[in-house]
């Protein structure tokens, strides 16, 4: 990436060439790109896991996969998609765009930012390597005790206990970083209620993660200790309780699903106004609904446990709370439609994905409401009906939203635009494939097909829709291939565009495409929500947008620069600290192997120590020379 604006004022110009510059970068944009590329790679990995599952389930009594292989595949599919795809994709967008959207030059803690990325990457590599080294986790992504503590002859679930723990640390670091950044580094004049919705949703998800991850951290340590040190937290025979794990998991797990959807909701709240040429309808209501969802999201966790035997009072309470959370969710949907209503819609690829998001999320949300009717849920839970529900909200919702974001912001990252032809093919194939895969699963579940089953018998009426779902899955795969081809082709030879190809509304479109390392030569002073739009357009007597006269601006438009622009220096210590931590994790995974595990643990401690001490001791910025 070339620096496109003069940087003589930088005391020192960090090299942007070569692998080392990527390994030591603390630039939020490069970190965002690395999160994005990693997530895309793991999307393919998780997708291949899904294709193998669907190949097995295409026919009754299939013998393509053993039960053991199947169990590892569906477990890793869930872990990969949640922790190695959706969360890092969200992190990619948040990392790249948040500073730009708030008029800042980087995040509050650039080295912590790099640390979170490397910790994420090394941890998912460790988790994925389990397939070759000891066996992959095979207890489902939810890892329910006491199955997860039953077989300690394999280290499979130790990978789970440690791997998810490490990923949690990475996310806590990111969350703290974003909260500090958004609360303290906004451009002058940008009050909270003038922030883009995507930034707001990042605030909410960051708080959700900081408050919920510690709970599963405790749960995972308890699981690890039960497996390795003879504790009995989850052992019913010793007066422990396997249900304790479920509560600890879902107190994290439920806010987690809002963490997975809110960033995509934020993206769509940005793209819809741009491609409707109207402001977001009900901005305050959309923001407050997001906050309400975050809040209420902590009160519904046991709706994942309606069949666990908690008793009717608890079930009734959580059922009602779950119904309640449908209200702010609906409010968002209506406001998005209200944004489009009366607008002038450009139906390009980012807009198609945004509309697809709304259409699919409505379905996923409604099937969620059917789950809230507790007795009905006792027929739906643990069947393909709930598999349909969460894929509609996570794929039809989050993935479609992130695709919209990818097509929308690609020009900002690269200065080129993704091919519209390939984009439309991608969208339609993905839309059709997705609905063909997961629509029928509602029917399969209602007709009695349980989930997490490596095979099913003939004679129950499940063959046809399973076959259709497999065809749909391969259609999705093909559409993703088109997406990857589009990215590669357009990065190399796509049509070049300027900083604001969409005539958009928010501050990032004021920066160059791609932005200079310091984002903005001059930091804008903010007076409006959708500040950039208001620098281009006013309104006439009827309230319609009209371009502002040439040269018109509200003064002062920019923060006067008083000295050089000081950018944070690159550092290799975050990567080393992350490597040390993951090595410690690997040592713990193999604790039961004796000296091997202890040895790796000790080496990991040493590396982590080196990384953290070096990080603390190094000067924050290199001296100018």
């Amino acid at each position, binding site marked *: 990436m070339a620096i496109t604006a003069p940087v003589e004022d930088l005391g020192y110009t960090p090299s942007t060439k070569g692998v080392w510059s990527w390994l030591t970068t603390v630039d939020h944009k490069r970190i965002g790109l690395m999160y994005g590329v990693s997530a895309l790679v793991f999307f393919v990995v998780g997708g291949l896991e899904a294709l193998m599952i669907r190949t097995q389930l295409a026919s009754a009594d299939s013998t393509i996969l053993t039960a053991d292989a199947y169990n590892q595949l569906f477990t890793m599919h869930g872990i990969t998609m949640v922790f190695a795809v959706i969360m890092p994709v969200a992190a990619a967008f948040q990392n790249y765009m948040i500073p730009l959207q708030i008029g800042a030059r980087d995040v509050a803690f650039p080295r912590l930012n790099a640390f979170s990325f490397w910790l994420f990457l090394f941890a998912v590599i460790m988790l994925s390597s389990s397939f070759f080294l000891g066996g992959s986790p*095979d207890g489902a992504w939810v890892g329910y005790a006491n199955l997860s503590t039953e077989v300690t002859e394999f280290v499979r679930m130790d990978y789970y206990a440690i791997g998810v723990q490490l990923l949690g640390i990475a996310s806590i670091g990111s969350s703290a970083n974003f909260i500090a950044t958004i609360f303290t580094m906004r451009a002058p004049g940008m009050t909270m209620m003038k922030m883009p919705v995507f930034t707001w949703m990042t605030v909410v998800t960051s708080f959700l993660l900081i408050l919920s991850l510690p709970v599963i951290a405790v749960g995972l340590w308890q699981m690890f200790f039960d497996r390795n040190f003879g504790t009995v937290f989850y052992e019913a025979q010793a007066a422990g309780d396997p249900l304790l794990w479920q509560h600890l998991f879902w107190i994290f797990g439920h806010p987690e699903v809002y963490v997975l959807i809110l960033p995509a909701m934020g993206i769509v709240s940005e793209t819809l106004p741009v491609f409707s040429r109207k402001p977001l309808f009900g901005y305050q209501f959309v923001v407050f609904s997001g906050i309400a969802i975050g809040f209420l999201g902590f009160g519904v966790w046991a709706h994942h446990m309606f069949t666990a*035997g908690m008793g009717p009072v608890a*079930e009734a309470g959580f059922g009602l709370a779950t119904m*309640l959370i449908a209200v702010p969710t609906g409010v968002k949907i209506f406001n998005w439609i209200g944004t489009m209503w009366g607008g002038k819609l450009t139906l390009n690829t980012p807009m198609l994905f945004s509309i697809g998001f709304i259409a699919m999320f409505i379905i996923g949300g409604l099937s969620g409401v059917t789950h809230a009717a*507790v*007795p009905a849920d*006792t027929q739906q839970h643990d069947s393909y009906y709930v598999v349909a529900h969460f894929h509609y909200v996570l794929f039809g919702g989050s993935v479609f939203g992130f695709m919209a974001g990818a097509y929308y912001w690609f020009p900002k990252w690269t200065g080129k635009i993704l091919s519209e032809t390939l984009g439309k093919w991608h969208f339609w194939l993905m839309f059709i494939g997705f609905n063909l895969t997961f629509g029928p699963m509602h029917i399969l579940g209602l007709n009695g097909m*349980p989930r997490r089953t490596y095979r099913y018998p003939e004679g129950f009426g499940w063959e046809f829709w399973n076959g259709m779902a497999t065809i749909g899955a391969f259609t999705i795969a093909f559409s993703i291939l088109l997406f990857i081809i589009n990215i590669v082709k357009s990065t190399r030879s796509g049509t070049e565009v300027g900083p604001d190809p969409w005539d958009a509304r928010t501050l990032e479109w004021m920066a160059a495409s791609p932005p200079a390392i310091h984002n903005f030569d001059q930091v804008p002073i903010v007076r409006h929500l959708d500040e950039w739009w208001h620098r281009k357009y006013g309104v006439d007597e009827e309230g319609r947008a009209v371009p502002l006269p040439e040269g018109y601006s509200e003064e002062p438009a920019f923060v006067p620069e008083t000295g050089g622009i000081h950018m944070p220096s690159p550092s290799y210590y975050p990567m080393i600290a992350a490597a040390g931590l993951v090595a410690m994790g690997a040592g713990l995974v193999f604790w039961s192997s004796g000296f091997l595990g202890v040895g790796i643990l000790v080496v990991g401690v040493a590396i982590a120590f080196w990384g953290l001490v070096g990080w603390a001791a190094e000067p924050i910025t290199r001296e100018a020379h």
Partner: protein
Amino acid sequence: MLVVLVLALLLAACATSDLPQSSLNPKSAEAQQIDELWRLVLYLAIAVFVVVEAALVIAIFWFRKRKDDDKPEPKQTHGNTALEITWSIIPALILVVIAVPTLQTLFDLASPPEGNFVRVNVTGHQWWWEFEYPDILDANGRPLTTANELHLPVGVTTELKMTSADVIHSFWVPPLAGKRDVVPGHFTFIKITPDVSRAGEAIPGQCAEFCWLSHADMRTLVFLDTEADFQAWADRQLQPATIPTDGPAASGFEIFTAICSTCHQAFIAAPEGPEVFGEAIAPDLTHFGSRTTLGARVLDNTTEHLTQWIDNPESVKPMAPELNNFDTGRILGMPDYGLDAEEIAELVALLEGWK
């Protein structure tokens, strides 16, 4: 048009079903109650779906930018508070309409059965179901004990009281009831009052909480009997199994006492009086010959399948008997004892004779 087609398909698929394990095929009072609640919620959800998706589709078509569009820019509407209040209240009201019958059904299904009811104790194991009728006792005072195939009288309520011997399972027979998890260290309950019109039917179900290798193969079959048939079945089940005195079955009994009884038990008509022989780690085999399936409804109970099961259990369903630990109680399947064809045939003869 496409939308109407999709909807029609949806409704057709969700209306009713005569598929054997479908929740849309209620055959008990409880499943019927759940089905009625489900239908209410479904119809409301479809109504909301139609209205909201229609608004979306209309918006797309009506407001899309046409080619050669020289219309002015849209009005920069920021919102409408009255609309926000309206579309917050209407969904809330719809949810109240769902909440009331939800709570009613929830508490009704959770309340203990009244009057006379049949009791069955269910214990989930990896990977089979143990059923015990605590009020149906044999001459020695031992409750009727069987595995994987359950018999229930129609028109009468049965309460299943369930727990697990190892990990969490879930008992799910969709036409008869919603599922309930089977948790070690806890008791959970399901009420089932099968419809009188369903007497003579056998309803399939299976485990619905992932329990490792043979989770997909931990199935059950529930026979709905008239009260008279149920009584007759119970009386037969309480009889001890005879010890065969000649033929291959007699040799089979030797093998049973030497090997199988390490895990299995049977109520035997011993010379000194009927007694239980063996361990309760694996299914009770007293009346195995009268069960219609084996391996927890993975295969039909035929000579060929029974031979295969004893010869190579892991060829029938995936298990890990090498991890069995009698001290900790972790039992993960039936081992292959390496019996030869003659020995297996003798065991088969024995078990087929234990009807």
